[in-house]
């Protein structure tokens, strides 16, 4: 299994439900967030517009955070999810520096780093991640990229999934539909 996600930015209302759902589900500390919704300029003048772009940890296949971690606390699990074992994290914050997507944060209370987990604790019970389930506009579709029949794979195949910052060469597993 290779868990991934497609994001249909055109459906996004920028309502913030995914942010709230994630914070509630994962008890994210005040002032921190594991996901975000960015507004970016799109197109070139005169055909210019705003693209609303939700994001989170991209669960890269070539993850720099995992490579630079000096203790092995950051790792990739059997389903390709980039995770962090808090017992082994010494709070050096090297992984935060290494992430081109700025997807990690330091939790002062625990002294460790944290980030989106693709809600593996929910996925283990065949539940969708909180941000996916909550989204009223069905912006996110989550599933097994190895399964060609899964909606996530079909959408990526049919509508050309692009990744953010491909020049970072991290091979993200979150694809943005065009």
């Amino acid at each position: 299994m290779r868990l991934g996600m497609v994001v249909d930015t055109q459906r996004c209302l920028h309502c913030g439900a995914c942010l709230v759902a994630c914070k509630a589900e994962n008890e994210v500390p005040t002032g921190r967030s594991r996901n975000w919704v960015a507004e970016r300029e799109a197109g070139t003048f005169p055909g210019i517009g705003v693209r609303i772009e939700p994001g989170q940890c991209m669960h890269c296949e070539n993850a720099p955070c995992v490579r630079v971690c000096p203790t092995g606390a950051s790792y990739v699990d059997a389903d390709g999810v980039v995770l962090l074992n808090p017992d082994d994290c010494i709070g050096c914050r090297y992984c935060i520096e290494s992430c081109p997507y700025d997807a990690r944060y330091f939790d002062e209370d625990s002294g460790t780093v944290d980030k989106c987990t693709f809600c593996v604790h929910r996925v283990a019970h065949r539940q969708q991640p909180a941000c996916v389930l909550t989204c009223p506009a069905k912006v996110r579709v989550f599933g097994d990229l190895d399964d060609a029949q899964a909606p996530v794979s079909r959408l990526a195949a049919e509508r050309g999934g692009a990744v953010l910052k491909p020049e970072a060469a991290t091979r993200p597993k979150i694809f943005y539909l065009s």
Partner: protein
Amino acid sequence: MHDEPSWGLLIVIYLFCGGLSAGAMMLSATAMLLGRGDRYTAIVRRGAFLAPLPVIAGTALLVFDLGRPLLFWKLFVALRPLSPMWIGSWLLALFSAVTLFYAYLQLPARWRRWRVPHGDAWARRLAVAGLPLGLAVAVYTAVLLGVLVARPLWNTPALAVLFVLSALSSAAAALMLITPAAEHPALSRADIVLIAAETLTLGGLLFYGVVSSSSARHGVGVLAAGDCALPFWLGVVLLGLLVPGGIEVRAARAHRVPRALVTLAAWLVLAGGFLLRYVVVYAGQQSVLLRGL
């Protein structure tokens, strides 16, 4: 998603201390191996005494800066050969041990509690080992930053060249402050070459950024035209390189340069070396990989 830089002043101090120690070890070992005995006694000795101190203090700061300092031992039970920080942890441990032993062998005989048979031969062996180890520590302080594609200002091998030259120059300046004047000409000659090479490398790094990718251009822009522009141009370039370089050139060309001015130049080099790491660490964290080339 954070506004405060993840790596702050403690990391800056540590990078400076690591470089200073590495430079001191390299200069002391070079002086011993080139001097064939007693030509540069003070540089060998004082360099050996200086070498272990900053790196051990800096490593202590580094551990203190961790989110969970008491778990620092986890660095040494993992096997992470692709992590610069893991490699660096072992390098620092090894380098600290070598410099401590090397410094001990330079102590006057009456201060040494344990007799070391063939002490001079061991000192030479440690110099031979300490030279590449010191170079490796100096290189590591830059590679730690340099491997990160996410930070375009850091993401260049030129940073390693810059930090090595700056480490050697800082150590030469520090030794000028703690050795008798007789050996200053040798240090001063070395420092002039180092300052010139460091200035050229810095110029190259800026030029490289301006003419390569948009991310690299943005990276050097943050350094040279962002929040750090004033400390960079005034502190690092003018007061840290050009002014002390000029003073040392004048002193080397047998102009009568007051002793106080040479001392000032040495302090300026040290302050410039520290400030270089400060602006690189802070500006580097404001630089982000842009979309598109």
